[in-house]
Protein backbone atom coordinates (compact mmCIF):
# COMPACT_ATOMS: atom_id res chain seq x y z
CA UNK A 1 0.00 0.00 0.00
CA UNK A 2 1.41 3.40 -0.91
CA UNK A 3 2.04 5.92 1.80
CA UNK A 4 -0.64 8.25 0.45
CA UNK A 5 -3.17 5.43 0.31
CA UNK A 6 -2.37 4.42 3.86
CA UNK A 7 -2.63 8.03 5.01
CA UNK A 8 -5.99 8.44 3.32
CA UNK A 9 -7.25 5.26 4.91
CA UNK A 10 -6.00 6.19 8.33
CA UNK A 11 -7.80 9.48 8.05
CA UNK A 12 -10.92 7.61 7.13
CA UNK A 13 -12.24 6.87 10.58
CA UNK A 14 -15.86 6.50 9.46
CA UNK A 15 -15.58 3.33 7.40
CA UNK A 16 -15.88 -0.16 8.75
CA UNK A 17 -13.75 -2.93 7.36
CA UNK A 18 -13.03 -6.40 8.56
CA UNK A 19 -9.71 -8.18 8.88
CA UNK A 20 -10.27 -9.62 5.43
CA UNK A 21 -10.43 -6.16 3.89
CA UNK A 22 -12.98 -3.46 3.30
CA UNK A 23 -16.68 -4.22 3.10
CA UNK A 24 -17.87 -3.17 -0.33
CA UNK A 25 -21.49 -2.87 -1.30
CA UNK A 26 -21.76 -4.62 -4.67
CA UNK A 27 -25.58 -4.79 -4.69
CA UNK A 28 -27.18 -3.59 -7.89
CA UNK A 29 -28.75 -0.17 -7.26
CA UNK A 30 -32.55 -0.04 -7.54
CA UNK A 31 -34.31 1.53 -10.51
CA UNK A 32 -34.87 5.22 -9.71
CA UNK A 33 -37.10 6.25 -12.60
CA UNK A 34 -36.52 9.39 -14.66
CA UNK A 35 -34.16 12.12 -13.55
CA UNK A 36 -32.46 15.35 -14.56
CA UNK A 37 -29.07 16.87 -13.97
CA UNK A 38 -29.31 19.36 -11.09
CA UNK A 39 -28.39 22.83 -12.36
CA UNK A 40 -28.32 25.99 -10.23
CA UNK A 41 -30.41 27.81 -12.86
CA UNK A 42 -33.36 25.66 -11.79
CA UNK A 43 -33.17 25.94 -8.00
CA UNK A 44 -35.99 28.43 -7.53
CA UNK A 45 -38.31 26.44 -9.80
CA UNK A 46 -37.45 23.21 -7.98
CA UNK A 47 -38.00 24.75 -4.54
CA UNK A 48 -41.23 26.50 -5.50
CA UNK A 49 -42.89 23.88 -7.68
CA UNK A 50 -41.48 20.52 -6.64
CA UNK A 51 -41.37 19.42 -10.30
CA UNK A 52 -42.25 15.87 -11.40
CA UNK A 53 -38.69 14.58 -11.61
CA UNK A 54 -37.95 11.27 -9.89
CA UNK A 55 -34.35 12.05 -8.97
CA UNK A 56 -31.47 14.42 -9.67
CA UNK A 57 -27.92 13.75 -10.74
CA UNK A 58 -25.54 16.18 -9.05
CA UNK A 59 -22.11 17.08 -10.40
CA UNK A 60 -19.91 16.01 -7.51
CA UNK A 61 -17.19 18.63 -7.97
CA UNK A 62 -19.71 21.49 -7.84
CA UNK A 63 -20.43 20.51 -4.25
CA UNK A 64 -16.95 19.51 -3.14
CA UNK A 65 -16.61 22.94 -1.54
CA UNK A 66 -16.45 23.83 2.16
CA UNK A 67 -19.95 25.34 2.61
CA UNK A 68 -22.24 28.25 1.73
CA UNK A 69 -25.08 28.33 -0.81
CA UNK A 70 -24.09 25.34 -2.96
CA UNK A 71 -24.32 22.85 -0.10
CA UNK A 72 -27.32 24.62 1.47
CA UNK A 73 -29.25 24.34 -1.80
CA UNK A 74 -28.16 20.78 -2.33
CA UNK A 75 -29.31 19.75 1.15
CA UNK A 76 -32.69 21.31 0.38
CA UNK A 77 -32.99 19.39 -2.90
CA UNK A 78 -31.96 16.21 -1.11
CA UNK A 79 -34.85 16.57 1.35
CA UNK A 80 -37.31 16.05 -1.48
CA UNK A 81 -35.46 13.97 -4.08
CA UNK A 82 -33.16 10.96 -4.34
CA UNK A 83 -29.82 11.93 -5.87
CA UNK A 84 -26.90 10.25 -7.57
CA UNK A 85 -23.40 11.75 -7.67
CA UNK A 86 -21.64 12.20 -11.00
CA UNK A 87 -18.00 13.27 -11.06
CA UNK A 88 -15.60 14.36 -13.79
CA UNK A 89 -12.22 14.28 -12.07
CA UNK A 90 -11.71 10.75 -10.75
CA UNK A 91 -9.39 10.12 -13.72
CA UNK A 92 -9.71 6.39 -13.20
CA UNK A 93 -7.72 5.55 -16.34
CA UNK A 94 -4.80 7.86 -15.57
CA UNK A 95 -1.34 6.43 -15.06
CA UNK A 96 -0.76 9.19 -12.50
CA UNK A 97 -1.29 8.63 -8.78
CA UNK A 98 -4.84 8.35 -7.52
CA UNK A 99 -5.74 11.64 -5.86
CA UNK A 100 -6.61 10.62 -2.30
CA UNK A 101 -7.53 14.15 -1.24
CA UNK A 102 -10.09 14.20 -4.02
CA UNK A 103 -11.39 10.80 -2.98
CA UNK A 104 -11.63 11.90 0.65
CA UNK A 105 -13.76 14.90 -0.37
CA UNK A 106 -15.86 12.71 -2.67
CA UNK A 107 -16.49 10.27 0.12
CA UNK A 108 -17.35 13.01 2.56
CA UNK A 109 -19.92 14.42 0.11
CA UNK A 110 -21.34 10.91 -0.27
CA UNK A 111 -21.72 10.62 3.50
CA UNK A 112 -23.66 13.89 3.48
CA UNK A 113 -25.87 13.03 0.49
CA UNK A 114 -26.35 9.28 0.68
CA UNK A 115 -26.54 9.06 -3.11
CA UNK A 116 -28.04 6.00 -4.77
CA UNK A 117 -24.67 5.61 -6.53
CA UNK A 118 -21.46 7.45 -7.41
CA UNK A 119 -20.46 7.64 -11.04
CA UNK A 120 -17.57 9.03 -13.05
CA UNK A 121 -16.17 8.44 -16.53
CA UNK A 122 -14.05 5.74 -18.07
CA UNK A 123 -11.30 8.13 -19.07
CA UNK A 124 -8.28 10.00 -17.78
CA UNK A 125 -8.04 13.74 -17.18
CA UNK A 126 -4.27 14.19 -16.91
CA UNK A 127 -0.95 12.84 -15.65
CA UNK A 128 1.85 14.29 -13.48
CA UNK A 129 -0.61 16.20 -11.27
CA UNK A 130 -2.00 18.13 -14.23
CA UNK A 131 -5.75 18.22 -14.82
CA UNK A 132 -6.75 18.99 -18.39
CA UNK A 133 -10.42 19.14 -17.33
CA UNK A 134 -11.42 16.93 -20.21
CA UNK A 135 -12.55 13.31 -20.56
CA UNK A 136 -9.65 11.86 -22.52
CA UNK A 137 -9.64 8.67 -24.59
CA UNK A 138 -7.81 5.45 -23.78
CA UNK A 139 -6.50 2.62 -25.92
CA UNK A 140 -8.60 -0.50 -25.46
CA UNK A 141 -5.73 -2.81 -24.60
CA UNK A 142 -5.16 -5.62 -22.10
CA UNK A 143 -2.58 -3.40 -20.41
CA UNK A 144 -5.11 -0.59 -19.94
CA UNK A 145 -7.69 -3.07 -18.72
CA UNK A 146 -5.35 -4.38 -16.02
CA UNK A 147 -4.29 -0.90 -14.98
CA UNK A 148 -7.80 0.52 -14.77
CA UNK A 149 -9.20 -2.59 -13.04
CA UNK A 150 -6.62 -2.27 -10.31
CA UNK A 151 -7.51 1.42 -9.79
CA UNK A 152 -11.22 0.66 -9.70
CA UNK A 153 -10.57 -1.93 -6.99
CA UNK A 154 -8.64 0.64 -4.94
CA UNK A 155 -11.37 3.27 -5.30
CA UNK A 156 -14.15 0.80 -4.52
CA UNK A 157 -12.23 -0.39 -1.44
CA UNK A 158 -11.92 3.18 -0.24
CA UNK A 159 -15.50 4.25 -0.98
CA UNK A 160 -16.95 1.00 0.31
CA UNK A 161 -19.23 0.69 -2.69
CA UNK A 162 -19.15 -0.31 -6.34
CA UNK A 163 -18.47 2.55 -8.73
CA UNK A 164 -20.60 3.34 -11.74
CA UNK A 165 -18.55 4.20 -14.84
CA UNK A 166 -19.72 6.00 -17.95
CA UNK A 167 -18.62 5.52 -21.56
CA UNK A 168 -17.32 8.84 -22.94
CA UNK A 169 -17.50 10.46 -26.36
CA UNK A 170 -14.24 10.17 -28.24
CA UNK A 171 -12.90 11.88 -31.34
CA UNK A 172 -9.83 9.74 -31.90
CA UNK A 173 -9.04 6.03 -31.54
CA UNK A 174 -5.65 4.50 -30.83
CA UNK A 175 -4.29 2.15 -33.48
CA UNK A 176 -3.00 -0.17 -30.80
CA UNK A 177 -6.49 -0.90 -29.37
CA UNK A 178 -6.97 -4.65 -29.13
CA UNK A 179 -10.75 -4.77 -28.64
CA UNK A 180 -13.78 -2.59 -29.29
CA UNK A 181 -14.94 -0.11 -26.65
CA UNK A 182 -17.96 -2.22 -25.65
CA UNK A 183 -15.84 -5.27 -25.02
CA UNK A 184 -13.51 -3.21 -22.85
CA UNK A 185 -16.46 -1.86 -20.82
CA UNK A 186 -17.94 -5.33 -20.46
CA UNK A 187 -14.68 -6.82 -19.26
CA UNK A 188 -14.02 -3.98 -16.84
CA UNK A 189 -17.46 -4.33 -15.30
CA UNK A 190 -17.13 -8.12 -15.04
CA UNK A 191 -13.67 -8.03 -13.50
CA UNK A 192 -14.26 -5.27 -10.93
CA UNK A 193 -17.97 -5.43 -10.14
CA UNK A 194 -18.39 -1.80 -11.18
CA UNK A 195 -21.70 -0.88 -12.79
CA UNK A 196 -22.11 0.94 -16.07
CA UNK A 197 -23.69 4.26 -16.91
CA UNK A 198 -24.45 3.99 -20.58
CA UNK A 199 -24.52 7.41 -22.22
CA UNK A 200 -26.56 6.73 -25.33
CA UNK A 201 -25.60 10.02 -26.90
CA UNK A 202 -21.94 9.06 -26.46
CA UNK A 203 -22.63 5.68 -28.06
CA UNK A 204 -24.25 7.47 -30.99
CA UNK A 205 -21.43 10.06 -31.23
CA UNK A 206 -18.72 7.38 -31.16
CA UNK A 207 -20.52 5.21 -33.69
CA UNK A 208 -20.66 8.18 -36.07
CA UNK A 209 -17.11 9.39 -35.30
CA UNK A 210 -15.50 5.99 -35.68
CA UNK A 211 -17.78 4.51 -38.31
CA UNK A 212 -19.53 1.57 -36.65
CA UNK A 213 -23.11 0.56 -35.92
CA UNK A 214 -24.34 1.83 -32.53
CA UNK A 215 -26.44 -1.33 -32.12
CA UNK A 216 -23.25 -3.42 -32.10
CA UNK A 217 -22.17 -1.33 -29.12
CA UNK A 218 -25.43 -1.99 -27.26
CA UNK A 219 -25.29 -5.69 -28.05
CA UNK A 220 -21.74 -5.89 -26.72
CA UNK A 221 -22.58 -4.49 -23.28
CA UNK A 222 -23.75 -7.10 -20.75
CA UNK A 223 -27.49 -6.64 -20.20
CA UNK A 224 -27.27 -6.96 -16.42
CA UNK A 225 -24.47 -4.43 -15.75
CA UNK A 226 -26.15 -1.15 -16.78
CA UNK A 227 -27.76 0.92 -14.02
CA UNK A 228 -28.16 4.30 -15.69
CA UNK A 229 -28.71 5.86 -19.10
CA UNK A 230 -27.73 9.37 -20.07
CA UNK A 231 -29.63 11.06 -22.86
CA UNK A 232 -28.11 14.26 -24.23
CA UNK A 233 -27.61 16.39 -27.30
CA UNK A 234 -24.53 17.00 -29.43
CA UNK A 235 -23.21 19.27 -32.17
CA UNK A 236 -22.90 18.01 -35.73
CA UNK A 237 -19.64 19.16 -37.36
CA UNK A 238 -20.37 17.36 -40.63
CA UNK A 239 -17.78 14.58 -40.68
CA UNK A 240 -17.93 14.11 -36.94
CA UNK A 241 -20.03 14.92 -33.86
CA UNK A 242 -19.03 16.74 -30.68
CA UNK A 243 -20.65 15.84 -27.38
CA UNK A 244 -21.61 19.37 -26.35
CA UNK A 245 -24.69 18.72 -24.18
CA UNK A 246 -26.16 21.99 -25.40
CA UNK A 247 -28.97 20.66 -27.60
CA UNK A 248 -32.14 18.66 -27.01
CA UNK A 249 -31.86 14.90 -27.42
CA UNK A 250 -32.05 14.11 -31.15
CA UNK A 251 -34.42 11.59 -32.77
CA UNK A 252 -31.61 9.14 -33.50
CA UNK A 253 -30.63 9.03 -29.83
CA UNK A 254 -34.27 8.52 -28.79
CA UNK A 255 -34.36 5.65 -31.28
CA UNK A 256 -31.23 4.22 -29.71
CA UNK A 257 -32.95 4.61 -26.33
CA UNK A 258 -35.81 2.40 -27.58
CA UNK A 259 -33.33 -0.26 -28.62
CA UNK A 260 -31.49 0.03 -25.33
CA UNK A 261 -34.73 -0.42 -23.39
CA UNK A 262 -35.38 -3.63 -25.34
CA UNK A 263 -31.97 -4.91 -24.41
CA UNK A 264 -31.51 -3.61 -20.87
CA UNK A 265 -35.10 -3.32 -19.58
CA UNK A 266 -35.96 -0.59 -17.06
CA UNK A 267 -32.82 1.45 -16.41
CA UNK A 268 -32.77 4.77 -14.51
CA UNK A 269 -32.74 7.41 -17.22
CA UNK A 270 -31.81 11.06 -17.19
CA UNK A 271 -31.43 14.01 -19.52
CA UNK A 272 -28.05 15.69 -19.27
CA UNK A 273 -27.81 19.33 -20.30
CA UNK A 274 -24.71 21.34 -19.47
CA UNK A 275 -24.90 24.38 -21.70
CA UNK A 276 -27.61 26.65 -23.15
CA UNK A 277 -29.70 25.40 -20.26
CA UNK A 278 -33.43 25.88 -20.99
CA UNK A 279 -36.20 26.49 -18.42
CA UNK A 280 -36.82 23.44 -16.26
CA UNK A 281 -40.24 22.79 -17.79
CA UNK A 282 -38.62 22.16 -21.19
CA UNK A 283 -36.32 19.54 -19.71
CA UNK A 284 -39.22 18.01 -17.77
CA UNK A 285 -41.15 17.77 -21.07
CA UNK A 286 -38.16 16.10 -22.74
CA UNK A 287 -37.86 13.75 -19.79
CA UNK A 288 -41.58 12.95 -20.03
CA UNK A 289 -40.97 11.87 -23.58
CA UNK A 290 -38.38 9.38 -22.36
CA UNK A 291 -40.82 8.28 -19.66
CA UNK A 292 -43.56 7.68 -22.28
CA UNK A 293 -41.20 5.78 -24.58
CA UNK A 294 -40.18 3.51 -21.71
CA UNK A 295 -43.82 3.16 -20.57
CA UNK A 296 -44.91 2.10 -24.07
CA UNK A 297 -42.07 -0.35 -24.53
CA UNK A 298 -42.13 -1.87 -21.09
CA UNK A 299 -45.86 -2.01 -20.31
CA UNK A 300 -45.64 -5.21 -18.33
CA UNK A 301 -43.26 -3.62 -15.85
CA UNK A 302 -44.87 -0.43 -14.59
CA UNK A 303 -42.36 2.37 -14.18
CA UNK A 304 -42.56 4.74 -11.26
CA UNK A 305 -43.73 8.19 -12.23
CA UNK A 306 -43.93 11.55 -10.55
CA UNK A 307 -46.96 10.50 -8.51
CA UNK A 308 -45.12 7.47 -7.20
CA UNK A 309 -42.27 9.68 -6.14
CA UNK A 310 -44.59 11.81 -4.06
CA UNK A 311 -46.07 8.66 -2.56
CA UNK A 312 -42.62 7.44 -1.69
CA UNK A 313 -42.71 4.39 -3.96
CA UNK A 314 -39.40 4.98 -5.65
CA UNK A 315 -37.51 1.90 -6.57
CA UNK A 316 -40.49 -0.45 -6.74
CA UNK A 317 -40.39 -1.93 -10.23
Amino acid sequence: MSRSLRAAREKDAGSSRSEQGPAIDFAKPAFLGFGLGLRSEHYSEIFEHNPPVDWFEVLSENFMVPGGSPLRNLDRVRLDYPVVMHGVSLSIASTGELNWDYLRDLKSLAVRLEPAWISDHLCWTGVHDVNLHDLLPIPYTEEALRHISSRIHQVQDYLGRALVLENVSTYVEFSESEMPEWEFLAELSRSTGCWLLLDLNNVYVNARNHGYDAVRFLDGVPADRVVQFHLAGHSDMGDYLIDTHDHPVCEEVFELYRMALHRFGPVSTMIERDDKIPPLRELVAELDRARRIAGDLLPARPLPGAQDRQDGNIGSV
Partner: protein
Amino acid sequence: MSRLAQLQQLFQDRILSGTPGCDEVILLLSDSAPAPVVERLGVYTNAYKARLIEIVANDHENLRAYMGEQLFDRMASEYVESHPSTTPNARWYSARLPLFLARTDPYRSWPQMAEIACLAAALNDAFDCEDAGVMRLEDLAAVKPEDWAELRFKPHPSVSCFETRTNALAIWKAVKSNNDVPAPEIRRQPLPVIVWRQELTPMVRHFDAEEAMLWKEGSRGIPFGTLCEMSATFDRPHEAAARVASYLAGWLNAGMLAE
Protein backbone atom coordinates in the same frame (compact mmCIF):
# COMPACT_ATOMS: atom_id res chain seq x y z
CA MET B 1 7.29 3.70 -18.11
CA SER B 2 4.35 1.58 -19.24
CA ARG B 3 3.01 1.91 -22.76
CA LEU B 4 -0.17 3.48 -21.39
CA ALA B 5 1.84 6.02 -19.37
CA GLN B 6 3.93 6.86 -22.42
CA LEU B 7 0.87 7.39 -24.52
CA GLN B 8 -0.84 9.58 -21.92
CA GLN B 9 2.32 11.67 -21.56
CA LEU B 10 2.47 12.27 -25.33
CA PHE B 11 -1.23 13.05 -25.54
CA GLN B 12 -1.07 15.49 -22.62
CA ASP B 13 2.02 17.24 -24.00
CA ARG B 14 0.20 17.62 -27.30
CA ILE B 15 -2.83 19.22 -25.63
CA LEU B 16 -0.73 21.54 -23.47
CA SER B 17 1.42 22.70 -26.37
CA GLY B 18 -1.52 22.94 -28.76
CA THR B 19 0.86 22.41 -31.68
CA PRO B 20 -0.97 21.64 -34.90
CA GLY B 21 0.26 19.37 -37.65
CA CYS B 22 1.77 15.91 -37.87
CA ASP B 23 3.57 14.61 -34.84
CA GLU B 24 4.14 11.58 -32.69
CA VAL B 25 0.60 11.54 -31.30
CA ILE B 26 -0.94 11.55 -34.76
CA LEU B 27 1.02 8.41 -35.57
CA LEU B 28 -0.63 6.63 -32.63
CA LEU B 29 -4.12 7.32 -33.87
CA SER B 30 -6.29 5.31 -36.18
CA ASP B 31 -7.15 7.18 -39.39
CA SER B 32 -10.01 4.97 -40.51
CA ALA B 33 -12.75 7.44 -39.50
CA PRO B 34 -14.39 9.81 -42.00
CA ALA B 35 -12.88 13.06 -40.66
CA PRO B 36 -9.10 13.70 -40.86
CA VAL B 37 -7.33 12.67 -37.68
CA VAL B 38 -5.66 16.08 -37.22
CA GLU B 39 -9.07 17.72 -37.22
CA ARG B 40 -10.45 15.25 -34.69
CA LEU B 41 -7.41 15.62 -32.43
CA GLY B 42 -8.05 19.35 -32.68
CA VAL B 43 -11.32 18.82 -30.78
CA TYR B 44 -9.21 18.07 -27.69
CA THR B 45 -6.54 20.73 -28.18
CA ASN B 46 -9.05 23.49 -28.99
CA ALA B 47 -11.43 22.52 -26.23
CA TYR B 48 -8.67 22.55 -23.61
CA LYS B 49 -7.79 26.20 -23.94
CA ALA B 50 -11.36 27.36 -24.58
CA ARG B 51 -12.61 25.52 -21.51
CA LEU B 52 -10.01 26.96 -19.15
CA ILE B 53 -10.45 30.48 -20.52
CA GLU B 54 -14.17 30.08 -19.90
CA ILE B 55 -13.52 29.01 -16.30
CA VAL B 56 -11.36 32.11 -15.72
CA ALA B 57 -13.98 34.32 -17.39
CA ASN B 58 -16.80 32.90 -15.26
CA ASP B 59 -14.85 33.56 -12.10
CA HIS B 60 -13.94 37.10 -13.16
CA GLU B 61 -16.84 38.41 -15.20
CA ASN B 62 -16.53 41.99 -13.86
CA LEU B 63 -12.84 42.09 -14.69
CA ARG B 64 -13.72 40.88 -18.18
CA ALA B 65 -16.31 43.63 -18.54
CA TYR B 66 -13.74 46.17 -17.31
CA MET B 67 -10.86 45.02 -19.52
CA GLY B 68 -13.02 44.32 -22.56
CA GLU B 69 -13.47 40.82 -23.95
CA GLN B 70 -10.54 40.97 -26.35
CA LEU B 71 -7.91 42.03 -23.83
CA PHE B 72 -9.33 39.76 -21.14
CA ASP B 73 -9.38 36.72 -23.38
CA ARG B 74 -5.81 37.40 -24.49
CA MET B 75 -4.76 37.73 -20.86
CA ALA B 76 -6.71 34.59 -19.87
CA SER B 77 -5.11 32.71 -22.74
CA GLU B 78 -1.66 33.68 -21.45
CA TYR B 79 -2.68 32.62 -17.95
CA VAL B 80 -3.84 29.24 -19.27
CA GLU B 81 -0.59 28.75 -21.19
CA SER B 82 1.53 29.50 -18.15
CA HIS B 83 -0.71 27.76 -15.58
CA PRO B 84 -1.63 24.17 -16.36
CA SER B 85 -4.40 23.21 -13.93
CA THR B 86 -3.29 21.15 -10.98
CA THR B 87 -6.62 21.02 -9.17
CA PRO B 88 -9.18 18.28 -9.73
CA ASN B 89 -11.87 20.89 -9.13
CA ALA B 90 -12.09 23.70 -11.70
CA ARG B 91 -13.50 25.89 -8.91
CA TRP B 92 -9.95 26.79 -7.87
CA TYR B 93 -8.31 27.01 -11.27
CA SER B 94 -8.25 30.82 -11.41
CA ALA B 95 -6.88 31.23 -7.87
CA ARG B 96 -3.49 32.45 -9.11
CA LEU B 97 -4.93 35.07 -11.46
CA PRO B 98 -4.38 38.07 -9.08
CA LEU B 99 -0.71 37.17 -8.72
CA PHE B 100 -0.36 36.59 -12.46
CA LEU B 101 -1.81 40.05 -13.17
CA ALA B 102 0.38 41.69 -10.56
CA ARG B 103 3.58 40.16 -11.98
CA THR B 104 3.06 39.94 -15.72
CA ASP B 105 3.57 42.58 -18.38
CA PRO B 106 1.67 44.48 -19.57
CA TYR B 107 -1.01 43.84 -16.93
CA ARG B 108 1.18 44.81 -14.00
CA SER B 109 1.28 48.37 -15.32
CA TRP B 110 -2.44 48.52 -14.50
CA PRO B 111 -2.44 47.56 -10.80
CA GLN B 112 -6.20 48.01 -10.51
CA MET B 113 -6.61 44.83 -12.61
CA ALA B 114 -4.82 42.58 -10.11
CA GLU B 115 -6.80 44.21 -7.30
CA ILE B 116 -10.14 43.70 -9.08
CA ALA B 117 -9.15 40.05 -9.57
CA CYS B 118 -8.25 39.86 -5.90
CA LEU B 119 -11.69 41.23 -4.93
CA ALA B 120 -13.46 38.71 -7.15
CA ALA B 121 -11.38 35.85 -5.77
CA ALA B 122 -12.15 36.90 -2.18
CA LEU B 123 -15.88 37.16 -2.98
CA ASN B 124 -15.86 33.75 -4.68
CA ASP B 125 -14.07 32.27 -1.68
CA ALA B 126 -16.53 33.86 0.74
CA PHE B 127 -19.42 32.42 -1.28
CA ASP B 128 -18.64 28.77 -0.61
CA CYS B 129 -16.27 28.84 2.37
CA GLU B 130 -17.05 26.74 5.42
CA ASP B 131 -20.16 27.48 7.46
CA ALA B 132 -19.97 28.80 11.02
CA GLY B 133 -22.39 30.25 13.56
CA VAL B 134 -22.44 34.03 13.76
CA MET B 135 -22.07 36.08 16.93
CA ARG B 136 -25.04 38.43 17.42
CA LEU B 137 -25.37 41.68 19.30
CA GLU B 138 -27.78 39.89 21.68
CA ASP B 139 -25.04 37.41 22.58
CA LEU B 140 -23.18 40.24 24.28
CA ALA B 141 -26.15 41.24 26.47
CA ALA B 142 -25.23 38.58 29.00
CA VAL B 143 -21.62 39.79 29.32
CA LYS B 144 -21.09 41.38 32.75
CA PRO B 145 -19.61 44.90 32.68
CA GLU B 146 -16.46 43.73 34.47
CA ASP B 147 -15.88 41.06 31.78
CA TRP B 148 -15.97 43.42 28.79
CA ALA B 149 -12.31 44.33 28.92
CA GLU B 150 -11.33 40.70 28.46
CA LEU B 151 -13.85 39.98 25.69
CA ARG B 152 -12.22 38.43 22.59
CA PHE B 153 -13.55 37.95 19.08
CA LYS B 154 -13.17 35.43 16.32
CA PRO B 155 -13.67 36.38 12.65
CA HIS B 156 -16.21 34.40 10.64
CA PRO B 157 -14.28 32.01 8.35
CA SER B 158 -15.60 33.85 5.29
CA VAL B 159 -13.80 37.08 6.19
CA SER B 160 -10.74 38.27 4.32
CA CYS B 161 -9.26 41.71 4.86
CA PHE B 162 -6.64 43.17 2.55
CA GLU B 163 -5.29 46.50 1.38
CA THR B 164 -5.88 48.06 -2.00
CA ARG B 165 -3.58 50.67 -3.46
CA THR B 166 -5.97 51.65 -6.25
CA ASN B 167 -9.67 52.51 -6.46
CA ALA B 168 -10.33 48.89 -7.51
CA LEU B 169 -13.44 48.56 -5.35
CA ALA B 170 -15.01 51.70 -6.82
CA ILE B 171 -14.23 50.42 -10.34
CA TRP B 172 -15.56 46.95 -9.50
CA LYS B 173 -18.80 48.39 -8.09
CA ALA B 174 -19.32 50.66 -11.11
CA VAL B 175 -18.75 47.80 -13.57
CA LYS B 176 -21.06 45.50 -11.60
CA SER B 177 -23.91 48.01 -11.50
CA ASN B 178 -23.31 49.16 -15.07
CA ASN B 179 -22.51 52.75 -14.01
CA ASP B 180 -19.84 55.08 -15.36
CA VAL B 181 -16.49 53.53 -14.53
CA PRO B 182 -14.09 55.89 -12.72
CA ALA B 183 -10.58 56.41 -14.04
CA PRO B 184 -7.97 54.31 -12.23
CA GLU B 185 -6.25 56.02 -9.32
CA ILE B 186 -3.22 55.12 -7.27
CA ARG B 187 -3.65 56.12 -3.63
CA ARG B 188 -1.00 57.53 -1.37
CA GLN B 189 -2.41 55.60 1.56
CA PRO B 190 -3.55 52.01 1.07
CA LEU B 191 -7.28 51.53 1.45
CA PRO B 192 -8.35 48.44 3.43
CA VAL B 193 -11.13 46.27 2.03
CA ILE B 194 -13.10 43.65 3.89
CA VAL B 195 -14.91 40.77 2.19
CA TRP B 196 -17.26 38.44 4.06
CA ARG B 197 -20.44 36.42 3.70
CA GLN B 198 -23.61 37.76 5.30
CA GLU B 199 -26.09 34.89 5.59
CA LEU B 200 -25.43 33.40 2.14
CA THR B 201 -24.43 36.55 0.28
CA PRO B 202 -20.82 37.63 -0.28
CA MET B 203 -20.32 41.27 0.76
CA VAL B 204 -17.55 43.81 0.36
CA ARG B 205 -16.82 47.27 1.77
CA HIS B 206 -13.96 49.53 2.73
CA PHE B 207 -12.64 49.79 6.26
CA ASP B 208 -11.22 53.09 7.42
CA ALA B 209 -7.69 52.97 8.79
CA GLU B 210 -8.73 52.77 12.45
CA GLU B 211 -11.35 50.10 11.87
CA ALA B 212 -8.86 48.05 9.85
CA MET B 213 -6.25 48.31 12.61
CA LEU B 214 -8.79 47.25 15.26
CA TRP B 215 -10.08 44.41 13.11
CA LYS B 216 -6.57 43.12 12.52
CA GLU B 217 -5.69 43.22 16.22
CA GLY B 218 -9.10 41.86 17.34
CA SER B 219 -8.78 39.00 14.85
CA ARG B 220 -5.59 37.84 16.47
CA GLY B 221 -7.19 37.66 19.90
CA ILE B 222 -6.48 41.11 21.37
CA PRO B 223 -9.31 41.73 23.91
CA PHE B 224 -11.84 44.54 23.80
CA GLY B 225 -10.18 46.53 26.60
CA THR B 226 -6.83 46.62 24.81
CA LEU B 227 -8.55 47.52 21.54
CA CYS B 228 -10.05 50.55 23.30
CA GLU B 229 -6.58 51.56 24.55
CA MET B 230 -5.16 51.19 21.05
CA SER B 231 -7.98 53.25 19.67
CA ALA B 232 -7.26 55.97 22.22
CA THR B 233 -3.71 56.32 20.88
CA PHE B 234 -5.06 56.43 17.33
CA ASP B 235 -7.51 59.31 17.68
CA ARG B 236 -9.60 61.32 20.20
CA PRO B 237 -9.02 59.32 23.41
CA HIS B 238 -12.21 60.24 25.25
CA GLU B 239 -14.35 58.86 22.39
CA ALA B 240 -12.24 55.74 21.87
CA ALA B 241 -14.44 53.27 23.75
CA ALA B 242 -17.55 54.56 21.98
CA ARG B 243 -15.84 54.23 18.60
CA VAL B 244 -14.68 50.68 19.28
CA ALA B 245 -18.20 49.77 20.49
CA SER B 246 -19.64 51.24 17.33
CA TYR B 247 -17.24 49.28 15.07
CA LEU B 248 -18.05 46.16 17.05
CA ALA B 249 -21.79 46.70 16.60
CA GLY B 250 -21.22 47.08 12.86
CA TRP B 251 -19.23 43.84 12.68
CA LEU B 252 -21.86 41.99 14.68
CA ASN B 253 -24.76 43.25 12.59
CA ALA B 254 -22.93 42.34 9.40
CA GLY B 255 -22.19 38.81 10.62
CA MET B 256 -18.41 39.21 10.44
CA LEU B 257 -17.77 37.53 13.80
CA ALA B 258 -18.10 33.85 14.55
CA GLU B 259 -19.75 32.46 17.69
